């Protein structure tokens, strides 16, 4: 408790983040970031392996993320600080791992934010075309506006940001349910047999199923971002596990329904090409349903889900960047909190131009692959993290808000699924994978041999835990 008393006796009045969020906000942050994955991007999995492969990938990825959520809930209910997995890594594995994890987070979220802005720009151009506009719409201002508006919202405070997210995420989720219900009542006709006839829905056979795992991650990518809110949640030990688990259940339902609806309406070849074919598959499906109401609803759903996601991404990426600045892993200038809005404002501002830079001019599947790769590296870190956590602090040494069952089976399953996914990314996107890991090797060396000298050693360890076993 030395830290707390230091704070009370300090000269300067401390400015910190605000604890204002409840479990519903955690759900909104987690699902809000991810739900866009059902509105766009997951369908590249259909392209990589066919329609059935995308469904199998959806479930295996669901298993992967259930492991992620279980492991993450245990560690984060104990390590509750902004930065989430970054702070976990710092306390459990060590500084260099933490620096890498922090970068995974910033990359995964900033690239996802760029992908969202791209989709939103596309959606506006589609709406313009449907309304009878014949010229070519310049998507740039809409992309820039999305990013700046959400950055502004984030800048102004976390509570309003996540309240906004809660509403638009709920609308986007209900839109998927309504579209599904319309298939039950017969308003929307599904033709699975005709559209997936022959061997064509598994065009590559078994290897296609493996390859589809690459974009299968996209159904859920970002759910682990709930931990970034740890410093702003009123009761992290309860709200974080609850919000995360409720989030993964929501997503399993939404992902399966999305696959079922889209493969029953769109030919798989068209569905599987998310750049030239179906950029926004649920919206395309609703267009073919023949109902204007559904089309408007799913159009709004697509728009809201992209905004909710970009919004959550700005929130998470800036928290991770801020946490690293605060520890001097990055220049300490970033570790500042806005005195009135209580947000990591410099980190928010800094990440805006980077997001815009990638939203303009990079193809969607590339941007998504960058995001997925950073996520994948993070999921590989998680099982190593939890195994070391249990070893250094066995269950009887510190109190955990949540203890995940069957340890170490989830960790081993997660590690195996990650290995499969690396191979899946390698199929078709191998050079990118190597370039990305090469980047992390270079920055790791930069950190270890240069940047780490600015970091205070013992002060990084801020949790009130006993000495780890074996040290």
């Amino acid at each position, binding site marked *: *408790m030395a*830290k*707390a008393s230091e*704070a009370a006796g*300090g000269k*300067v*009045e*401390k*400015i*910190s*983040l605000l*604890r204002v969020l409840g479990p519903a906000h955690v759900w909104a942050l987690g699902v809000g970031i991810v739900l866009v994955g059902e509105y766009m991007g997951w369908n590249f999995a259909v392209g990589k392996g066919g329609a059935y492969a995308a469904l199998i990938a959806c479930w295996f990825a669901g298993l992967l993320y259930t492991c992620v959520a279980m492991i993450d809930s245990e560690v984060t209910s*104990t390590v*509750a*600080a*902004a*930065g989430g997995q970054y*702070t976990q890594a710092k306390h459990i594995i060590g500084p260099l791992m933490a620096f890498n994890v922090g970068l995974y987070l910033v990359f995964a979220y900033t690239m996802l934010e760029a992908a969202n802005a791209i989709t939103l720009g596309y959606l*506006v151009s589609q709406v*313009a075309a449907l*309304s009878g*506009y014949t*010229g070519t*719409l*310049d998507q740039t*201002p*809409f992309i*820039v*506006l999305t990013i*700046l*508006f959400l*950055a*502004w919202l984030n*800048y102004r405070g976390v509570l309003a940001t996540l309240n906004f997210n809660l509403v638009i995420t709920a609308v986007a989720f209900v839109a998927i349910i309504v579209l599904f219900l319309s298939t039950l009542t017969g308003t929307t006709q599904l033709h699975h047999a005709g559209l997936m006839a022959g061997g064509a829905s598994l065009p590559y056979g078994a290897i296609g199923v493996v390859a589809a795992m690459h974009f299968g991650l996209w159904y859920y990518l970002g759910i682990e971002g709930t931990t970034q809110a740890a*410093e702003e949640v009123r*009761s*992290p*030990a309860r709200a974080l596990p609850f919000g995360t688990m409720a989030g993964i259940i929501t997503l399993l339902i939404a992902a399966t329904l999305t696959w079922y609806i889209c493969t029953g309406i769109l030919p798989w070849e068209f569905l599987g090409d998310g750049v030239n074919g179906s950029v926004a598959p649920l919206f395309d499906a609703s267009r073919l349903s023949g109902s204007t109401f559904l089309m408007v609803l799913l159009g709004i759903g697509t728009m809201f889900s992209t905004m909710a996601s970009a919004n959550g991404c700005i929130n998470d990426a800036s928290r991770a960047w801020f*946490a690293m600045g*605060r*520890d001097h892993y990055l220049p*300490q*200038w970033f*570790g*500042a*909190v*806005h*005195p*009135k809005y209580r947000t990591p*404002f*410099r980190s928010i*501002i800094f990440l805006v131009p980077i997001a815009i830079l990638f939203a303009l001019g990079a193809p969607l599947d590339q941007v998504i692959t960058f995001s997925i790769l950073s996520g994948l590296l993070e999921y590989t870190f998680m099982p190593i993290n939890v195994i070391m956590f249990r070893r250094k602090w066995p269950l*009887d*040494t*510190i*109190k955990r808000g949540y203890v995940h069952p069957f340890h170490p089976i989830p960790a081993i399953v997660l590690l195996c699924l990650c290995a499969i996914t690396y191979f899946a990314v390698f199929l078709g996107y191998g050079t990118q994978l190597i370039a990305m890991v090469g980047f992390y090797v270079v920055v790791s060396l930069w950190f270890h041999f240069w940047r780490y000298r600015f970091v205070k050693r013992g002060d990084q360890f*801020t*949790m*009130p*835990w006993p000495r780890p076993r074996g040290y």
Partner: protein
Amino acid sequence: MSFWNYMEYAAWILSVIFGLYILIDWFRIESSYSEEALTSSREGELEAMTEQHKL
């Protein structure tokens, strides 16, 4: 000019407004608070007060 051309301009204008809001507020804050106060947040302080990891 059609409706959608106006929308393009509207989007640019709104972008500038949001961007300026952030920038102006940013400079205002930078000039009225000391660097020490702004970067005074420390990890684990709130944690230490609200959660006790004791069995």
